[in-house]
């Protein structure tokens, strides 16, 4: 009798340990669903723009950037802000330049504010969460294509899209780097 109860309680313990880990994907799902932390959906252009353009409304989309200490890059939006209609497909471009002479992998996270708008902010093309390689002193334009959903609440007039670039080297093995270098179709496989 004791044994059975003990085993059940131990099973519960193991389940709860797993639950701790299950919170990770669960949280991501919730974030995307409710725009927590300014996380947005990534969709294809057609779905996002399917409802047509709402010509009567203007939304200002503001761009900001941050480059974390440890990544010797310059990274900034090419324009401060842009005015769009809900439902309109729009492009924005960020500019990135490696100020060091070594090739470096960076990785960007993005965040949309206010969070109530994040759910309605559809990015259809984005350089976020993928490793980006810049050779020494290389400069590059990084495009973002987005659609502000037509169902965005009426009181949202300004949306801020923020990108933060971090040094991604610690998260990449030499093998990953080589693969990524090859896939970005560069001749100089310069690894230091």
């Amino acid at each position, binding site marked *: *009798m*004791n044994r059975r*109860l*003990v085993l059940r*309680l*131990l099973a*519960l*313990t*193991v389940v*709860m*340990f*797993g*639950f*701790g*880990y299950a*919170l*990770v994907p669960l*949280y*991501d799902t919730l*974030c995307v669903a*409710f*725009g*927590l*932390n300014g996380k947005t959906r990534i969709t294809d252009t057609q779905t996002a723009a399917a409802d047509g353009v709402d010509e009567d409304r203007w939304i200002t989309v503001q761009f900001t950037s941050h480059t*974390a200490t440890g990544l010797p890059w310059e990274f900034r939006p090419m324009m401060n802000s842009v005015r769009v209609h809900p439902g309109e497909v729009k492009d924005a471009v960020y500019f990135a330049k490696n100020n060091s002479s070594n090739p470096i992998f960076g*990785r960007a*996270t993005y965040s949309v504010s206010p*969070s*109530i708008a994040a759910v309605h902010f559809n990015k259809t093309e984005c350089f976020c*969460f993928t490793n980006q390689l810049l050779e020494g002193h290389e400069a590059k334009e990084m495009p973002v294509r987005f659609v502000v959903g037509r169902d965005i609440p009426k009181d949202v007039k300004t949306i801020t899209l923020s990108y*933060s670039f*971090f*040094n*991604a080297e*610690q*998260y990449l093995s030499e093998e990953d780097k080589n693969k990524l270098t090859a896939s970005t179709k560069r001749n100089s496989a310069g690894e230091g």
Partner: protein
Amino acid sequence: MATVADDHHDHHDHHPTGLIRWITTTNHKDIGTLYLLFSFAMFLVGGAMAMVIRAELFQPGLQIVDPHFFNQMTTVHALVMVFGAVMPGMVGFANWMIPIMIGAPDMALPRLNNWSFWILPFAATLLLSSFLTAGGGPAAGWTLYAPLTIQGGMGVDLTIFAVHMLGISSVLGAINVIVTIFNMRAPGMDFMKMPLFVWTWLITAFLLIAVMPVFAGAVTMLLTDRHFGTAFFNPAGGGDPVLFQHIFWFFGHPEVYIMILPAFGIISAIIPTFSRKPLFGYTSMVLAVAGIAFLSFIVWAHHMFTVGMPLIGEVYFMYATMLIAVPTGVKVFNWVATMWRGSLTFETPMLFAIGVVVLFTIGGLSGLMLGITPADFQYHDTYFVVAHFHYVLFSGSVMAMMGGVYYWLPKWTGHMYDEKLGKLHFWLTTIFFNITFFPQHFLGLAGMPRRIPDYALQFTEFNVISSLGAFGLGVSQLLMAYIVYKCVKGGEKATDEVWDNPEGLEWTLPSPAPYHTFETPPVIK
């Protein structure tokens, strides 16, 4: 339900003596004693760190320690008090009292019990040895927030392992408590006849099993983030720092109740005895405890209103948090109703119980204030919070344990403690406690952030008062060590009942309680 008391009959008739007895013991009373001694030792260690903190904050400017060491002190003080002093202390009471209160001969799993205890000293050593590593001990606060924790040195890794061990120990202890309560009750001891202390511990044990593994998971993720290339919490790898806070507080809020619920149980044992009246509203007390435990799972994000949640989230967590005030209020009202029209006397345990009810309520009300989201933006991470959680943890849990020690000490040792000194200990503790922590409410409101080693000049006066109070509070606790020592060594012989017609099976036993009790189950009316 049947009892399995007979299975255990013959194991412990001869037991070794000396050190070997304590290392190999499977007797619930021995293990309870070990837990309580360990808890008190950790209480002094954590207290010493608090003295360093208050000494540094006695005056503006950096006097004694550098800021990094100060951060280590606040971090380890909290970890030691939470995982070393309060939780093991409560397990000590559980070990001593639960089998006796339900008429069982011992805990259901005595060898596991020995294990659960002996993990603790090693875990504590591991935690404290982090000070000897190059980067020093953990310095990111007991909440171990990422990504700051990811920056720390090897001390953080030792802390993570220590937390794992402490977690294993408490989960094993919790399993033991549940199995004991489910399977070992004397015939006739129905669930709704169990003393409230047993009830609170049963619910606490379930909370422990539900959340300690989640915490273990969170720190494991920290460990892999630090060393094995995962990025759960590090934005540089695509992780989310706020996720750590969600997981941590999913554990952290129930953890708060893990520390306070058994204290409620102790108070609910003491107050009826000295009111000479049965506990008011037993059923609603049980329901209130269960209600508080349930609510503890759905309010966690009120610890993190400032991270930037959507409005709907803030509103939900505010409402859920405010709800907790209802069952907590029921408990306080029931305690007051228990005293109402009783025949009250004020021995040391009763003084502590009254002190807990009053002071805990101050902490409860400030907790309600903290739950009001718009106002919380001003209180969050200031000394107002420090004052709040010391009112619930020190004058709630710790003082309840002190009251419990005085209440059951005559039963444990067979001697009466020195009543005069006991009362002196109560008054010193209560007065110095309030001198230490009440001014911290004002400091927080005036704008002093927590976890800072130095402060602006306008905070000086209250910090001086607070530090002086803290030194008094620290020294007063040595008196308790002396009182307990004196009581163990001798003193007036305690009667079997000890107090005036108290309720509960423990008072039907001789004082001191014999090594083996209830080998034949008692008859419950």
